[in-house]
């Protein structure tokens, strides 16, 4: 018994060291965000003491240079709205596809499956032109694009779950006088809730961090997302304003980590459920 607890202590120590190493890159960004620009590349590993310390100046210049606060607002708006629209529209669509069987619904379902294996680069050029012509180059338009491009995965996952719902429940509701809409929202949707949470988590992780799709679709003079704002700091010829960059990086990371600490149980469960089905 004694040797076992000793061995366990060894594991705890090894993984403790590994965890510290794992967090080190983030720690490094945080300490450098308080340093004068010149010292960030000269002495990245030293603590920001003495003449290196610059207070919040990097944050101020980073926010001003990138329009970070607006970018944060737009990213939040795009992510929340897109995920809500995706969950609502695709769950309705998946239910219809699962209950009405004809050639049209079958074709739509298989096209959705197919869309899951198509990489974004395949459609990026025509998509950005089409979005431009239809004037979808705003955050509102982007929501429609995300619905279209994200439909495949969520219809696939909802469909898998809908197949397992016994038809009798819905039939009973219909016999009692529910319209299809009432049946869906009062009976089916509550049953779909766990799947909806899984999909919401996967889609949030994708849309919040997405760079290329919003970069190509949005009119980036007017609208930026966080990823676009960060990349914007790489000026022409590859020069980077490291001071402003550190400030913006910290501001970009902190909300994610807070969100993660509050919802980690759901996030980790969602990832496992998503991986098993996808």
């Amino acid at each position, binding site marked *: 018994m004694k040797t076992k607890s000793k061995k366990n202590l060894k594991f705890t120590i090894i993984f403790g060291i590994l965890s510290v190493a794992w967090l080190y890159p983030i720690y490094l960004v945080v300490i450098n965000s308080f340093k004068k620009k010149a010292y960030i590349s000269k002495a990245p590993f030293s603590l920001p003491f003495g003449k290196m310390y610059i207070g919040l100046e990097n944050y101020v210049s980073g926010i001003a240079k990138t329009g970070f606060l607006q970018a944060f607002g737009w990213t939040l708006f795009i992510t929340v709205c897109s995920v809500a629209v995706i969950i609502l*529209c695709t769950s309705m669509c998946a239910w219809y596809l699962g209950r009405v069987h004809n050639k049209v619904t079958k074709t739509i379902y298989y096209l959705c499956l197919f869309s899951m294996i198509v990489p974004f*680069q395949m459609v990026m*050029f025509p998509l950005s032109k089409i979005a431009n012509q239809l004037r979808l180059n705003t955050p509102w338009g982007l929501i*429609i694009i995300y*619905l279209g491009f994200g*439909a*495949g995965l969520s219809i696939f996952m909802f469909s898998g779950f809908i197949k397992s719902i016994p038809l009798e429940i819905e039939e009973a509701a219909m016999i009692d006088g529910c319209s299809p809409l009432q049946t869906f929202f009062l009976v089916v949707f509550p049953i779909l809730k766990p799947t909806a949470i899984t999909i919401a988590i996967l889609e949030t992780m994708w849309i919040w*961090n997405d760079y290329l799709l919003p970069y190509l679709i949005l009119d980036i003079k007017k609208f930026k997302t966080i*990823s676009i704002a960060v990349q914007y700091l790489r000026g022409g010829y590859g020069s980077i304003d490291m001071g402003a960059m550190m400030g913006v990086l910290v501001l970009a990371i902190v909300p994610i980590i807070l969100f993660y600490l509050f919802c980690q149980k759901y996030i980790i469960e969602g990832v496992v459920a998503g991986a098993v089905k996808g």
Partner: protein
Amino acid sequence: MEKAIKRYFPVFVLPTLLAFIIGFIAPFAEGIWLSFCDFTTINDAKWVGLENYIKIMADDTFGHAFRFSTLFTVVTVILINLFAFAAALALTKKFKGTNLFRTVFFMPNLIGGIILGYIWNLLLNGVLQIFKRTLTYSSVYGFVGLVILMLWQQIGYMMIIYIAGIQNIPGELIEAAKIDGASSKQILKNITIPMVMPSITICTFLTLTNGFKLFDQNLALTNGEPSGTSEMLALNIFNTFYGRTGWEGAGQAKAVIFFILVAIIAIVQNRLTSRKEIQA
């Protein structure tokens, strides 16, 4: 019941279908067509047959990006899965702090690729500075840097999937083996690994497609420097579209080839997983 629902097509299906047509079907069809055309915008497209495909055969940058991506993917698939599996094995044992360690290892996944790229840009350039080098000194540094970044990002994700797989193994199975006198090595080889085979398949293919599709991290960490030698497939396609005028058609043709490559990987995975399910 089917009849009653059927009339509701415009409410239930139409919104998603329209968005799906705008966001996927139309651009996909147009993409295939454009790969056989010469164009700078969509409106001036002229049919040129296979010319674009012939053009990219002679384009060294594409071949280089293809080799770079393939090597990168092979290395990351092996390393990520080995480390993730080892970490999962350790963290399913009972010792203090397992939950905390899990949380820490998973965290980098939530950070976007662009942001990850700049975090590691700082750290790796800081280390290389000691040797008077930078990340963009040669493509070898870029390659190693990208591998380290991907390990940091993805080990946690795959570890979570492996942990779920290991926890699904019935405890009786391992206990029975212990009573029969199996060593821990034998248990690993004959029980644990065969039982988590589905997780291994999932993780292998996730890391495989992630490796080939990598874009944001590549853009932020090295941007293909020096002179395009650390450019991966997705970035190469992007730069062909938006960095070389007159090459838009070739860019689309590259995208089609890229799509076929990713599709083959996905179909092979699908075959393998469904076959395993039948056996189980």
